[in-house]
């Protein structure tokens, strides 16, 4: 073991490798409910070359390697299930390029969302990227690697759909470029018109390699932004309303939330509809289109627009949304977790009722938060529960509620998003056998020694 530690020290430098108990403890967990498991070593590489050398060493020694960004998945995806070397990517946080005209940027694999937001605001104020509602220390690679969603998901899809190229260290240590950057100086496409190999790495949560650079699409940042919140007490109307809103092709983002507390929110489903424009006229035109699209519900008194007063509106306009963190502490115990399957929008009413049922069954504080992905193509439906970290019984009830929520969503045709190890197994059990076989073949081909984030997406 001392040899491994020395070898890692030689690669990343003395200050960036640790076997100390406190650091192994820190990296053994994330803020969610998953059981902790300590790594044997923690390293913080500063370059793709250092990552390569760490992975080559691990592959030779058949030691597990677990890449980690912000460590905020909540579902334990960067918890080293089998120990080994935890690679904290956050020293690799340089913004390497912004191509303003082609609207893409390239950053290193540990670059945080907060850094990207601040950089674009300062240097490229007409551009934006799809900001997830995660704390700013979340990394863009992490969000892409779990098929995350951000503020532009309704318009442009998953964060991984917006990727324009990757640089990856393979499990065998080779450095590999994916997309246009593999044969061109420009990072404008992750695949097309070439065979698209980005799918070997996006969504694999670090089981097929370590992403050391990522190119991603930027989008126009309009001068004005506003939100209208449509409220209805009939969840069965939600799929139709989403269909009508997405038909307009004018809305930036659609999020739906439902929670029993504070009391004023009880019984109602709230749809935050975000609009952007460069002029008041453009914004007003879009507002009018949205109102007209929903007029039949207003006239039937089945829904209406909520008055967002000036003291409340800033909360709705935040990016990322801090209200999620505030909800996390509603029980004054700091715990919050959600199961967020990707599922058809038509399943919203069933999922909302299931959340209420689970909250009641397990006596838990609950909320629903659903983000539309694409023009009504699907949604992330969050079954969210809060808990007090000092209350182990309550935490156990949350685990049970989340298990039931995922089981329910799989039964209703959904897919688990950023699934826990158990949820991955459940998904593989349901998967077409030939698909699963292909899954296994790809993993084996890329990672013959099974060193990459073992325990995750393991085909038995």
């Amino acid at each position, binding site marked *: 073991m001392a040899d491994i530690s020395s070898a890692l020290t030689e690669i990343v430098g003395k200050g960036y490798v640790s076997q100390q108990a406190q650091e192994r403890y820190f990296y053994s967990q994330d803020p969610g409910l998953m059981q902790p498991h300590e790594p044997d070593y923690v390293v913080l590489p500063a370059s793709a070359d250092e990552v390569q050398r760490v992975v080559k060493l691990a592959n030779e020694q058949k030691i597990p390697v677990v890449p980690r960004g912000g460590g905020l998945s909540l579902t334990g995806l960067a918890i080293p299930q089998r120990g080994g070397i935890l690679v904290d990517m956050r020293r690799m946080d340089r913004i390497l390029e912004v191509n303003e005209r082609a609207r893409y940027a390239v950053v290193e694999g540990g670059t945080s969302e907060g850094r990207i937001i601040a950089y674009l605001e300062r240097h490229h104020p007409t551009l934006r990227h799809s900001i997830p509602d995660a704390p700013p220390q979340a990394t863009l690679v992490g969000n892409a690697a779990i098929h995350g969603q951000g503020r532009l998901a309704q318009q442009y899809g998953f964060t991984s759909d917006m990727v324009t190229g990757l640089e990856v260290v393979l499990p065998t240590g080779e450095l590999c470029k994916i997309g246009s950057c593999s044969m061109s100086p420009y990072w404008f496409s992750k695949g097309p018109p070439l065979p698209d190999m980005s799918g070997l790495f996006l969504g694999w949560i670090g089981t097929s390699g370590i992403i050391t650079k990522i190119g991603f699409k930027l989008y126009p940042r309009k001068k004005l932004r506003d939100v209208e919140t449509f409220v209805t007490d009939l969840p069965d109307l939600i799929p139709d309303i989403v269909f009508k809103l997405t038909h307009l092709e004018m809305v930036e983002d659609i999020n739906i939330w439902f929670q029993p507390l504070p*009391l004023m929110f009880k019984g109602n489903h709230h749809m935050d509809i975000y609009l952007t424009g460069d002029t008041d006229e453009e914004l007003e035109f879009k507002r009018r289109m949205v109102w007209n699209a929903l007029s039949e519900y207003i006239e039937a008194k089945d829904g*209406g627009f909520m*008055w967002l007063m000036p003291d409340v509106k800033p909360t709705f306009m935040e990016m990322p949304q801090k209200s999620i963190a505030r909800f996390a502490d509603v029980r004054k115990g700091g715990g919050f977790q959600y199961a967020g399957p990707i599922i058809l929008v038509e399943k919203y009413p069933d999922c909302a009722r299931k959340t209420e049922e689970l909250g009641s069954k397990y006596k838990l504080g609950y909320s629903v938060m659903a983000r539309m992905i694409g023009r009504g193509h699907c949604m992330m439906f969050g079954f969210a529960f809060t808990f007090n970290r000092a209350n182990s019984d309550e935490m156990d009830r949350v685990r049970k509620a989340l298990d039931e929520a995922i089981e329910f969503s799989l039964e209703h045709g959904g897919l688990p998003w950023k699934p826990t190890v158990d949820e991955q197994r459940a998904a593989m059990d349901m998967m077409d056998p030939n698909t699963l076989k292909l899954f296994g073949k790809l993993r084996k081909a890329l990672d013959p020694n099974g060193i990459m984030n073992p325990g995750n997406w393991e085909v038995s």
Partner: protein
Amino acid sequence: MVELRFDEAKCEQCEGVNCLVRCKHLNLDVDTAREEMRKIINGQHSFVLDRCVTCYACEEYCPFGNHPFYLIVERQEQEGMLLAPRAITNQWINLCEPVGRYSVGKIQERALSLCYIPAFTDLVGGKLFEDVAASFFIGPEFFCNVVYLHFARASVIRERLPKVVENIAALGMKEVIFLHDECYGSFKSLAPAYGIPVPFKVTHYFEYLYDRLKQLSGQLKPLNMKVAYQRPCSSRLIPETDHYVDDIFSLLGVERVNRTYDRQNALCCSAIVRLNMGPEGRDMANDNQSKNIEDMLQAGVEHCVFNCPYCYMALSEKVAAKGVKPIHMIELCRLALGEEPAKGVMGYGRYQ
């Protein structure tokens, strides 16, 4: 439960049927108005119930103080009408459900009612309130509930208002200064109309400000401003308070400009119209707001003075976008005293 004390005989002797004839939104002749009012009194359906935008103006137009608007609201509810969509109605009813989220200061003989409007806490400071600021109460337990007139839910008022009176009285003060115009209207107009006794002295904050400014007159610096006054719907319940606007402006060296949409011809802020109706209501609200602001601009004002916090929230950004600075009446008084403006949601500091 308490009941509305409506006197049919007063309507029978009324010649002008001003309540409906003067309504901006109905455009009725006297005969039609009389016929529709008769239907309302008799519990029959009238199109007035459908077309009412709940601006409260008919309360002011009635020469007998017979509360035609309260009767309209009662009838709307009896017919099971929803003015706002169901979800919005329930949201507002739940918002002010008393569930123990209130705060009470060190109550003295006089106390300040901040209603259930936290933005007031920013405004209550300085010399104007130095003797009374600590003696306050705020929360849904003390909320006047008048707003449910906009939602055809008089039953909520009938159920909650007696308890609110009890809650306030239990604090033990002799006099309450109401910072929310609508609260004052609740205890001076609604409560008597429903026969609810109010066992404490009810004072409008305009009256308090006027008296206090006179005490501090040596410290006042004339503002030499031309202002528009945004008269709220609640003021229709208590028109006797409107002269204080002129009285206070006079002490401050402020000119309340003559404009089309002031005094009895005031246009409401239209927040509720926008909330309650579909795209048509939204257009009406936008149109009312545009006409109102254009009227201010034509009168050449620098400031728009607000009384009601909800008018302020509905219109402040819109008037500011047109170059007219929004200011609450309390902030205007503090400005004349040379005090630092507040920075909160209703603070003048946001627009300096």
